[in-house]
């Protein structure tokens, strides 16, 4: 302790120009130690973060793409890639989303109404979002879409499984595939809920196909219905369908309601049971 009290008679007064020598010596050592600890902590905390996704959002960079636009099952543009060995046309699906936490349904609906309907060819100017083989484009305003000559027919999804179950979490694709890092998990849950509530179609992350678009029995996208279970690890069942380079899971919308309600009920029951066990 003597080291910490070089002279018991020393008394520190902050507004005097100089601190006593002994106290100054000790405080210098304390600050140096604190500085070294802090620098080590900064490096340690930075080093031990979970790896960030290599997905990308070309913020501030506008790209022109040409393709055929559709609003069902969710707004998207099909970009021709060429033909496969059987001569069938291949497309890259690019999901369309709006600015911020909003979908593009209104903009696409408006454009298609003014043109020749679904499958109209258009030139789109927006910011690309891409990661893990999936792509989206952010369209800020209707004027960023220009209809051009050309049209294709809607290609229906092909059902591959009548009854299919997958376990994973619901994410919003805009954040997950590049805008946010991290774009999943508890830290991002509120943002994902806002994005989905704003019209960005939810994507299920999990299962053998990786990512699934969710539609109800009428092929309409499921959105705000899943708000209470976004970010939770859940199991969904339904019909699996292949559609271009995506997989669609068609589920009964009542399943989501039941899932949300049942999940909360089970959790509340479990908490109650644990409480009772502790009381006993």
């Amino acid at each position, binding site marked *: 302790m003597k080291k*910490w009290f070089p002279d018991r008679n020393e008394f520190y007064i902050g*507004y005097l120009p100089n601190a006593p020598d002994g106290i100054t010596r000790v405080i210098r050592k304390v600050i140096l130690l604190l500085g070294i600890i802090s620098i080590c*902590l900064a490096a340690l905390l930075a080093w031990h973060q979970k790896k960030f*996704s290599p997905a990308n959002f070309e913020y501030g960079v506008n790209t022109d793409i040409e393709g055929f636009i559709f609003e069902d099952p969710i707004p998207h543009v099909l970009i021709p890639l060429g033909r496969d060995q059987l001569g069938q046309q291949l497309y890259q699906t690019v999901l369309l989303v709006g600015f*911020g936490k909003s979908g593009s349904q209104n903009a696409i609906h408006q454009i298609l109404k003014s043109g020749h309907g679904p499958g109209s060819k258009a030139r789109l100017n927006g910011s690309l979002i891409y990661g893990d083989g999936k792509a989206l484009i952010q369209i800020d305003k209707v004027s960023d879409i220009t209809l051009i000559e050309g049209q294709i027919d809607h290609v229906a999804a092909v059902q591959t499984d009548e009854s299919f179950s997958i376990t994973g979490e619901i994410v919003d694709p805009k954040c997950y595939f590049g805008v946010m*890092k991290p774009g999943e998990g508890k830290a991002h849950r509120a943002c994902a809920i806002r994005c989905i509530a704003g019209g960005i179609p939810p994507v299920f992350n999990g299962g053998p196909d990786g990512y699934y678009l969710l539609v109800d029995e009428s092929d309409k996208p499921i959105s705000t219905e899943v708000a209470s279970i976004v970010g939770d690890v859940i199991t969904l069942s339904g019909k699996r369908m292949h559609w271009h380079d995506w997989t669609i899971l068609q589920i009964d919308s009542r399943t989501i309601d039941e899932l949300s309600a049942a999940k909360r009920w089970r959790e509340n029951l479990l908490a109650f049971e644990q409480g009772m066990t502790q009381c006993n």
Partner: protein
Amino acid sequence: MSASYQSILWNRQKKIYDLVLVCFVVAYISIFITTTAVLDPDVTQETLIIRSTSTLALLLLHVILCIGPLARLNPVFLPLLYNRRHLGVTMFFIGAIHGTFSIIQFHSLGNINPILSLFLSNTHYESFIKFPFEVFGFFALIIFFLMAITSHDFWLHNLSPRVWKTLHMFVYIAYLSIILHVMLGVIQYETSPVLVVLLAVGFVAVTILHLAAGRREQLNDREQIEVKNDFVKVCNIDDIADNRAKVVALNGERIAIFKYSNKLSAISNVCKHQNGPLGEGRIVDGCITCPWHGYQYLPHNGSSPPPFKEKVATYDVKLVGKEVWLNPVAYPDGTEREPATIN
């Protein structure tokens, strides 16, 4: 110590304090950002800002909370306490950057107001594990904001030291909120145990230091003396060093008996500025000087020398042989009392 209010009453020590603080903040943020960007180039700028400021604010909060008990346990740490309010305001600004960027990043540009989104997006209020962790951070930031804007002595005087001190004790509620904010947020996302371990170490350190400082106060107060008649014997004259004090607890009040210039005077142990322990101070230039911020009082009347206006209660003290006797009935703040003379 100043007779009028200025935004900051700069002096050399404060300048050194703030310079070291700025260097510390810049070094921490630079190292965190550089290390993250080098190890994982996929990180975004927003995430770098959010995470570097959050971890730095958390670290500063722990340092702030440790300074108080450290200074009580060992006066050598008093220079760290002297300008702690600048440390607190800095911590608030860094925390506010974290909060603002997080709200912009995760809650803005949606279909409802960003502040409402913070409360209404994740609504799992019934579940502890899924609880919206953002709410804890928001309320902690509100407390830090109130503390930062009232940190100036103007508010200390206008709110009264008692109200001001009570408000600033809310830092402990804010600290617990921050612990919950981290535990229910980023820790549920990260897989490395490092943050959990560091948070636990910080919490244990803060708790142990506070318990140790509290224990010391408790032991000092145990010397409580039974009050009989008017005066009570409190110690021997040789128990008090020159220009220093002995603190005694009588009827729940701490009283400091100072020995100086062959005289004895007794005043309240509680400084009017921030409730600092006057009895741990010294007589400097004939004035009792508070160890926390150097506020001064004349020993015989408990008043700050003009033009200052702070006053504390005074007590009657007398010497019987070598025994120091004290009357524990306080006189109104600033009442002049004849010092006991040491022959």
